[in-house]
């Protein structure tokens, strides 16, 4: 059967990157479609009428919305290669817990770093480092959160690494001295083609953030 896989995405979206990585890990051929978020395509509005957001994975005409849900879908459908979630239910629960933690913390706190100043920004930076340190604790000595190979939590987190330079520059701080183990993990992930081809150049992300700041009248 001819499989048709389309990904509606936006280049700098960490959520979109997650799905790109999952598809690449599984060797799935797909069509990448860049959305203009100021002028969303009829297809996007049709496929995600509830949230009207990217990423949307469309498999044989059927949409899957929300990045972590799409990653799990990819893992379940293309299950013969590079499993992302472990098979043991307890380990799966732990992986889901940490992916959910990343969703609750990293994006919103990171956003505060580049959209605020002064005390609010300092508080966001502190909270951000604390969250990263918790994740470092979970990583421990393992090469990846998934163990010997990349897994669900790695896929959930690594896209935000492409935003670290933007956070650091806007926030005037450095993450590596605080979280060396995590940065080492990130560089290890970037050695993988599925990751390096899915993440944008951090410099470009920073330039994009500057455009957004100007647009929103920040600083």
């Amino acid at each position, binding site marked *: 059967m001819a499989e048709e896989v389309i990904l509606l995405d936006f280049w700098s979206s960490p959520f979109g990157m997650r799905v790109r990585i999952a598809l690449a890990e599984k060797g799935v051929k797909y069509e990448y479609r860049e959305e203009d978020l100021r002028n969303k395509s009829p297809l996007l509005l049709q496929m995600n009428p509830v949230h009207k957001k990217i990423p949307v994975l469309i498999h044989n005409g059927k949409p899957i919305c*929300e990045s972590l849900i799409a990653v*799990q879908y990819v893992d379940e*459908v293309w299950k013969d290669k590079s499993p992302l979630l472990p098979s043991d*239910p307890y380990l*799966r*629960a732990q992986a*889901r*817990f940490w992916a*959910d933690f990343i969703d609750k913390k990293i994006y919103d706190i990171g956003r505060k770093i580049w959209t605020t100043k002064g005390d609010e920004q300092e508080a966001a930076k502190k909270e951000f480092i604390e969250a990263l340190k918790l994740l470092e604790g979970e990583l421990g000595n393992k090469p990846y959160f998934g163990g010997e190979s990349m897994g669900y939590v790695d896929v959930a987190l690594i896209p935000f690494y492409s935003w670290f330079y933007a956070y650091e520059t806007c926030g005037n701080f450095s993450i590596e001295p605080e979280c060396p183990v995590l940065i080492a993990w990130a560089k290890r992930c970037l050695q993988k083609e599925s990751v390096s081809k899915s993440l944008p150049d951090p410099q470009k992300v920073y330039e994009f953030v500057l455009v957004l700041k100007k647009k929103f009248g920040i600083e």
Partner: protein
Amino acid sequence: MAAGEEVKLLGGWFSPFSHRVELALKLKGIPHQVLQEDLSNKSPLLLKNNPVYEKIPVLIHNQKPISESFVILEYIDETWKRNPLLPQDPHDKALARFWASFIDDKLAEAVRRTITTQGEQQQQDVKKATEALEILEGELKIKGKRFFGGETLGIVDIMLGWISIWLGVIEEFAGVQVIDPENFPVIEKWKRDFLQVPAVKESLPQRDLLVGYFENFRRFKLASVPAPGN
């Protein structure tokens, strides 16, 4: 239950999130022990088993803890396969997860805020909650089944279960109306059918006890929130 299996739920009778887990365990017929937490005086067991959030519910299965209600529900479904809560088909599964996530991110979050907000802000939160419910009403209508899970309760029904009793209590003392029964015939029927399920009847708290609990909670919260404009 296999010999030596130990299932404990660190929960609270007042907590809709804890109820989700209780309901799932009952639907699957899993013997378990519920330890009631006092959130103003959290037990060492809770702090040790959920160090990240220090929140209930926490399921402890053979001494291993799982936190976050939806994560727990998926764990229960994967560990005890009788009476499945999630569909088998990957796309249907993805849809179930989507609606579960929607219920928490859009509906529960907005309703939660109405407990502690006032005036214009509260009105906005009510509006968001009502809009989220309208979307769910539409979705259930299209489905044309008794529950989101079909003829029996599924994971989405369990995630939504709190509207059968907690929502009314919150509306009452917060002085808001999120759900006008006339506008939500499908959801209202869903609620009636939900409340008829034996496992639900056995696990829901008493309404008057909930009212008392939330009245205290709102007074406490309002007293500790800075006045608008500060």
